[in-house]
Each structure stands twice: as structure tokens, then as C-alpha cells.
């Protein structure tokens, strides 16, 4: 159905390009052809970078011909549109940045390109990464390649859809409360959020700075490890990037889980996911056991407060970060009779409803009289949540739980903001604790009223900086189960 060259994993593409069996230019042309064929239905990209892709691919081929061996040689890359790439439009899915051209390149993106990746386009996302379905983008609609009547998840939904539809082999996403893991689960992909501070945030347009973390969306765990190896490590341009050595994750992939204790969270066994999904997760835990892991019950008594904690801390940080969009230095300006009216009108016209809601709740939580009751209390709750994980990891090496509250849903199904926030119930606690976590495909379930089975994801979480352990274990699970390969994308249908 698809060009064989673009169905290969990033690891296979790089091996082929390095060995001269194909060229980066050939892979780029095949990928651009796929983009042209499926974009009218999928809508993963806000900007397709034909010229840049061809130029980068030619440079990769030159480097390979000169004898270099590049870990991501010729690998087509989707970049979430909240990351800067010098000379290209970078919008954050917002009208306020609709015409903005990034004047420099984000460190994570630069490192991927240095490793041989070829940028195919800037991927759609919820406006300023605030959302769980991509529906909050002001600039485009992205559809789930597995069912075009459903959302791809969010906020990194464009990156996820691009990889699922073979319009890239690796998608860069950013995860603040689940924005890589949830679209990963919705689009049958591996979605990996490294430890906070592992990947530089320089050039990632900030949403909530104490939570934002860049990571990859890929079709295999091995590809996630390759991307992580290329991107991670200290960057003097980001004062919060961690200055400690990173060992190769690609070299730590394992075949079994012998000797590992996997924690199953008591408080998450609520039956809230429905019988079908519950059965799939039970099977997934049994598979972990079959691979040699010992299952232990762990308790995260305050994890249920994660959502409440997050929806004070993240908006508070966003209200501060987004104050820079004021119509003075870049982006949209709507004129007014004085500077104050110019601010008010610019931000009213430039931001969509979800961004406005979050700025408002954040400004409220930080305002005089409410600061201690809301913001400080949430920061204290964050301490308790992080402590719960520390306690749990005293009796286990990894934690396994669902990645999202349901499979991909239909457009406009979550019109009440709080019902959308609930999507990230299982991913937010890890974000608050800064932990590395990923979602990996674990089965298929037909949603109520749905036309076909949709993928769901298993979330694995490890202690701080234990990415090697996390990716190694996820690889063993993936290789033993192969859930991701069960269904090809349904790209032949007409959009609803």
C-alpha cells in the first residue's frame, strides 16, 4: 500500500543510508510524495518544508559519501510547531504567531539534524501545547490516521499523526502533562517523555517551564532510543538542562524483564476504563510477568490529586510565560488608542479560548489573596506526589499503568474543558514528579459506537534518569507482543 522505503523504522532507514543501499534524497522524495498523497486527509503538518528537506537530505548524502556514519542518516523528521527551526514559520498553532519566522534553531532540533535527520515539516499541535486532541489548534485540523473521524490526541497530535501515516519516521513532541504519551497511545506509537531536564528546552516555546520536556514519537522503541541518544544531554543555553552524563539508550535494549519488579498502582484499579480496556491492561501486566518481571502492588495515594495540582501549576506558569506575547516585539498586533488597549486587543484576537482560560486561571491562582491558597498549596501537593513515587520505587524498578483514559475519541466529543483535562489523568502525576515515562502500544479496543478497533497504550514509568532501564524494558515488551503491527492505517477512506 505504501512505498516500502517509508514504512521502515528510523533505525532501518539510517542503516540503509549509511550502507549506501539507499540515499537520504531518495527517502526524502518518497516521504514528500507520501505527504502529498495523504495530507489532504490527515493534516499533520502546518508547514511542509520541501526545499529544506531536499537541502538537508543532499547534505546528509554528502556526509555519508565522505565517510561519516550518522545515527539518524536520512531519517524523515516531523517537528512540532512549538520548536524553532531557523528560517521557518513557527506558530505554536496560534494566530498570535501565525506569520512568525524563527530566527534560530532549538537545540533538540539542531542535534537531530546534526545526527542526520531530515526535516519534512512543522507539525500541528494544540495552541501553545494546551490540549489533548489537537482541536485547540487555531491553524488546522489533524485527523487520526487509524480513523479519520477521530482526533490524533494532543497536544503533539500533528507529530503523532505524521509518524503514524508514514509522513515521518520520528516526530518531535513536547510533553507537559501527557502531550507526547497520549497522542502516542491514540496513534499506535511509542511516545516517550524523558526525565525533566534531560533534553534542552532552548528553542521550545515555553508553556509551563517546570514541566515542559521534549521527546520523540516513533513506531518502535528502538527508534525512540535513537532519538533520545541524539537529543539528550546538557546544553548551556538551558539553565535547567541537567549536567550529567547520558549513556546510550539504544545500547540498553533488552530481550526480557528478568530481575525487574514492576509496580501496579493500587489506586488506578478502579474499573473506570471499562471492561474491554481493563482486560487488555490485565493481559499487558501478565505479559510483563511472562517476560520475567515480578509484579508488585504499589500505592500512589496522592496521584489522584495530580490533575488538581497540575491545573494550578501549569496555568500559573503559562500565564507568566505567555505575557511576552504583547504585540510589541513579534507576532500579531491589533492597534488601540494607547498601549494598554493595544495589549488587550492583541491578546484577545491572538489567543484561542483554551489559552485564554489557562491564562485566566493562572493569573487568578497567582493573584494577591489567592497565591497561598492555590499556587503554594499546589506546589506542596506536588511534593507529596513526588514523594509517593519515591516510596513506590523503593519496592519496584518500573511502574506500569494506562497511558490515557480512553482511546482516540471523535471530534467535538469533549467540548467541556474538564472532560478533556481528564484524558491526562494517568500521565500528569509522572510529569509533576519529573519522571521519565512512555506509552507503548498494548492492544486494540472498539470504542462505543466506533467503526473499528483503535489502539491503546501501556504507560511505563521509571525513576529519575533511568531512561535506559525504561526503554530497555519497553523494547522487551514490544518485541514480545507486537501490538503495533496489528493494523495498518486506514488512509484510503474519505474524511467525514
Amino acid at each position, binding site marked *: 500500500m505504501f512505498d516500502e522505503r517509508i514504512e521502515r523504522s528510523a533505525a532501518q532507514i539510517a542503516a540503509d543510508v549509511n550502507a549506501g543501499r539507499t540515499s537520504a534524497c531518495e527517502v526524502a522524495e518518497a516521504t514528500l510524495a507520501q505527504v502529498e498523497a495523504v495530507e489532504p486527509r490527515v493534516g499533520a503538518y502546518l508547514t511542509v518544508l520541501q526545499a529544506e528537506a531536499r537541502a538537508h537530505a543532499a547534505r546528509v548524502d554528502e556526509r555519508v559519501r565522505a565517510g561519516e556514519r550518522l545515527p539518524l542518516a536520512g531519517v524523515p523528521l516531523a517537528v512540532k510547531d512549538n520548536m524553532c527551526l531557523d528560517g521557518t514559520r513557527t506558530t505554536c498553532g496560534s494566530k498570535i504567531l501565525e506569520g512568525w*519566522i524563527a*530566527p*534560530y534553531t532549538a537545540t533538540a532540533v539542531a542535534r537531530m539534524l546534526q545526527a542526520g535527520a531530515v526535516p519534512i515539516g512543522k507539525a500541528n499541535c494544540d495552541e501553545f501545547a494546551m490540549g489533548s486532541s489537537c482541536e485547540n489548534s487555531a491553524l488546522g485540523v489533524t485527523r487520526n490516521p487509524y480513523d479519520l473521524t477521530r482526533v490524533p490526541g494532543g497536544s503533539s497530535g500533528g507529530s503523532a499523526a505524521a509518524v503514524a501515516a508514514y509522513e515521518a519516521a520520528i516526530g518531535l513532541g513536547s510533553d507537559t502533562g501527557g502531550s507526547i504519551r497520549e497522542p502516542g497511545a491514540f496513534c499506535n506509537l511509542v511516545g516517550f517523555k524523558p*526525565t*525533566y*531536564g534531560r533534553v534542552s528546552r532552548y528553542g521550545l516555546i515555553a508553556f509551563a517551564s*517546570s514541566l515542559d520536556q521534549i521527546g520523540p514519537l516513533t513506531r518502535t522503541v528502538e527508534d525512540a532510543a535513537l532519538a533520545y541518544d541524539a537529543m539528550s544531554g546538557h546544553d*548551556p543555553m538551558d*539553565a*535547567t538542562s*541537567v549536567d550529567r552524563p547520558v549513556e546510550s539508550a539504544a545500547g540498553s535494549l533488552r530481550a526480557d524483564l528478568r530481575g525487574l519488579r514492576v509496580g501496579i498502582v493500587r489506586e488506578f484499579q478502579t474499573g473506570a476504563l471499562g471492561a474491554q480496556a481493563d482486560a487488555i491492561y490485565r493481559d499487558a501486566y501478565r505479559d510483563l510477568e511472562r517476560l520475567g518481571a515480578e509484579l508488585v502492588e504499589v500505592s500512589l495515594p*496522592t496521584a489522584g*490529586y495530580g*490533575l*488538581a495540582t497540575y*491545573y*494550578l501549576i501549569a496555568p500559573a506558569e503559562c500565564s507568566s510565560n505567555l*505575557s511576552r506575547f*504583547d*504585540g*510589541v516585539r*513579534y*507576532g500579531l*498586533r491589533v*492597534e*488601540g*488608542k*494607547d*498601549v494598554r*488597549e*493595544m*495589549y*488587550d486587543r492583541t*491578546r*484577545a484576537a491572538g489567543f484561542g*479560548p483554551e489559552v*485564554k*482560560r489557562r*491564562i*485566566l*486561571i493562572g*493569573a*487568578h491562582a497567582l493573584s494577591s489573596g*489567592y497565591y497561598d*491558597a*492555590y499556587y503554594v*498549596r*499546589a*506546589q*506542596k*501537593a*506536588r*511534593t*507529596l506526589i*513526588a514523594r509517593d513515587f519515591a516510596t513506590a520505587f523503593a519496592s519496584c524498578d518500573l511502574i506500569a499503568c494506562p497511558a490515557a483514559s480512553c482511546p482516540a475519541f471523535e471530534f467535538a466529543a469533549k467540548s467541556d*474543558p*474538564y472532560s478533556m483535562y481528564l484524558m491526562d489523568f494517568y500521565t500528569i502525576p509522572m510529569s509533576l*514528579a*519529573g519522571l521519565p515515562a512512555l506509552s507503548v502500544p498494548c492492544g486494540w479496543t472498539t470504542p462505543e459506537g466506533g467503526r473499528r478497533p483503535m489502539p491503546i497504550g501501556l504507560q511505563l514509568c521509571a525513576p*529519575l534518569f533511568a531512561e535506559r532501564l525504561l526503554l530497555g524494558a519497553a523494547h522487551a515488551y514490544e518485541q514480545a507482543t507486537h501490538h503495533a503491527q496489528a493494523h495498518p492505517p486506514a488512509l484510503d477512506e474519505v474524511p467525514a
Partner: protein
Amino acid sequence: MPADSIDVRYVAQLARIALTDEEVERFGAQLGNLLEHVNALAELDTDSVPATAQVIESHDAVRADVERPCLDREVVLAQAPQRQGGFFRVPRIIAE
């Protein structure tokens, strides 16, 4: 915890966002609903718990105090909504 209400008009002033009456009403209801949920945090005993601003231990990051290249002024000003010479131009701030 405080009441589950939010003075949307006042907060919008703080945040420098002009809102329509319809938005004031809609956001007020939606954010009131969210505050009801976040008020569950009152159930936690946090009196003796320190606040976490950031989970990863980090120290003041300083760099050598030496010049290094930065974006060229023309590059930065090229995308200004309005400029005048080497400056960003803004509407009047102080009345005559």
C-alpha cells in the same frame, strides 16, 4: 480553600486580555467548575510540607562573563509589528 468563583473581569485585566460579555460568562462558569475540582487539594494535609518549584535538583547556573554572539539587531527588528530606526515602536504610553 477559597470559594469556587473567579472574578473573570478583574483577572482578565491583570492578564491584559479584552473579553466579550459572552466570554466573561462562559469562562466564569467553566473556570468555576475547574476550581471546584482543584479545591479537592484542601483534603491534603500540607502544613509541614515544603513547596516544590522544580523536581530536579539544580543550582544557580552561571556562565563565564565573556561576550558571545547573539541575534543581530536587524534580524530581531525585522519581525517587529512596528519599528522606528533601531527601536520597537509602541503606541503612546504617557499622556501629553
